[in-house]
């Protein structure tokens, strides 16, 4: 153990935050599309983007590894340059984003679906184009749910282990997170450190889930009869 507990925690929090931000905006766009539009292969698209939530994380990690390997679809030989992601902190961000993505989409989609589309139609009759109706009506009404989605994505990213370890490894001081540090501590018999990391994970997880629960229950209903 060369890393302090504080450094591991800060790094994990930072990476979780970064990957949540990375996944959040495309996830919101997809969630809105799935909530509001009917289009060809909608179910197919929805299922495809839900896969990271149901596959073993190591399988997702392995898929990313194959994609980013030198001969992979996004590897050096195909792109003509080295994206240099594997086994760096960027790989952690990528793995965490991919794993958090379906959770954010799912929660955001439910929040969008709870806003009656009739309100957007009224917005348009009042002279606002669709993007302004989204911005002025749907977004504020879904805001609490979207915030909850972000927090859930964040917790998923914080706890991510399987996919990250496949593409970023578990390099102390470079790509080690609370999850991978706990694994190392247990494997090498450092029980005190493992216990500390467990308590830390428990505390951060509880705060995040509690906030999400609180935010997911709106004070005012998004519909009016």
């Amino acid at each position, binding site marked *: 153990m060369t890393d302090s507990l504080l450094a591991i925690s800060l790094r994990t929090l930072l990476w979780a935050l970064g990957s949540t931000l990375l996944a959040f905006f495309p996830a919101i766009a997809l969630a809105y599309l799935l909530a509001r539009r009917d289009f060809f292969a909608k179910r197919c698209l929805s299922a495809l983007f839900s896969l990271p939530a149901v596959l073993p994380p190591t399988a997702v990690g392995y898929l990313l590894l194959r994609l980013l390997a030198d001969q992979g679809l996004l590897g050096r030989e195909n792109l003509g340059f080295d994206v240099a992601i594997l086994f760096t902190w960027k790989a952690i961000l990528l793995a965490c984003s991919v794993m958090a993505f379906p959770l954010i989409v799912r929660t955001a989609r439910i929040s969008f679906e709870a806003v009656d589309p009739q309100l957007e139609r009224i917005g*348009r*009759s*009042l*002279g606002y184009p669709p993007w302004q109706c989204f911005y002025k009506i749907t977004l*504020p009404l879904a805001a609490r749910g979207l915030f909850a989605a972000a927090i859930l994505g964040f917790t998923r990213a914080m706890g991510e282990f399987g996919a990250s370890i496949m593409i970023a490894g578990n390099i102390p001081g470079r790509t080690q997170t609370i999850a991978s540090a706990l694994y190392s501590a247990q494997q090498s018999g450092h029980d005190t450190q493992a216990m500390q990391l467990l308590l830390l994970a428990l505390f951060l997880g509880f705060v995040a889930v509690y906030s999400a629960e609180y935010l997911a229950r709106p004070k005012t*209903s998004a*519909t009016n009869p």
Partner: protein
Amino acid sequence: MKPPSLSIAIELALKSFRLELNLEFQGNVLGVWGPSGAGKSSLIEVIAGLNRQAKGRIAFGDICWQDSAQGQFIAPERRRIGYVPQAQWLFPHRSVIDNLLFGAHSTRGPLLEELCTLLELTPLLDRSVQQLSGGEKQRVALGRALNNQPRLLLLDEPITALDISLRRKILPYLLAIKARFQLPIILITHDPVELVALCDRVVQLEQGSLRHYGSPADILNAPEYYLSKQRSDFENILHAEVIEHSAHNTRLHYQGTTLLMPKASAALGERIYLSLPARELIIARQPSDQLSARNQIPARIVQQHLDRPVALLELATECQHSTLFAEITLDASQQLKLKIDDPVWIIFKSSSLTACS
């Protein structure tokens, strides 16, 4: 100045039928009438541009809103319409005043002040939407649509037939809007009083097709309308002028005769709409001063419909030949030997009259 004309020639496939309408309208208020599921709300949505599935042509004034053959379609936000749907009227995350100000052309100016007075919104302004009753929400939605300075107002009245008196609370406001704003209005309504009191012309839809286009009286005086009603449901609608208030009664002037009703709140000289259920009318060969019923009007029988458990008489009043319907038993009709063109007296109690506006 004449209001702009609305020209509609559209087709729209709905679940079990096609909505097909070909119509020119130039006037103040166009009523849309018909059973629920006849395609009325879809028609309003097509006019608003909120339903893009329809094919055909819609023009308002000299602006073409939609022409499918030319691939032309003006987005709803560019049509300058006011749209008040059946439900989900207000934005729940905004206060009443913020709802009223929500609109690309809305301002906090003299128009808003006038609307607040006209629709009695001033005491509601600082409230949250959740604190409003259904009728208040509907008024705020009307105010919000009007504050955006629309060129055409589209109103989709909900079918809340359960409580007709509650529904009629909106009528005086609609009358005030009609009188104040020379604004074309398309109104979906299920209330015969609204039809008579507000509409210049009425489109009657059935299964998506135009069944009739005419005056409100054409539609309400058609026997098939009466026959479609549940017994004891049908109301005659009278437009009368308040001429005198006494301690317990109000005297009204109606087509050359005087009517008496329980004391109404309307001012002297005001013209109000009254409802008179067909089942409340008594038909007599002679007037009588031996009865407690206070209202007696001379009339003539225009038509008799005897193919129901009760006889339906279509009567023309002596003075201005407006139509009233009376429901009496078949026995009574036979005993009085009533025939078409017979002069009769229509008799009813003052309490049979109810003010609607």
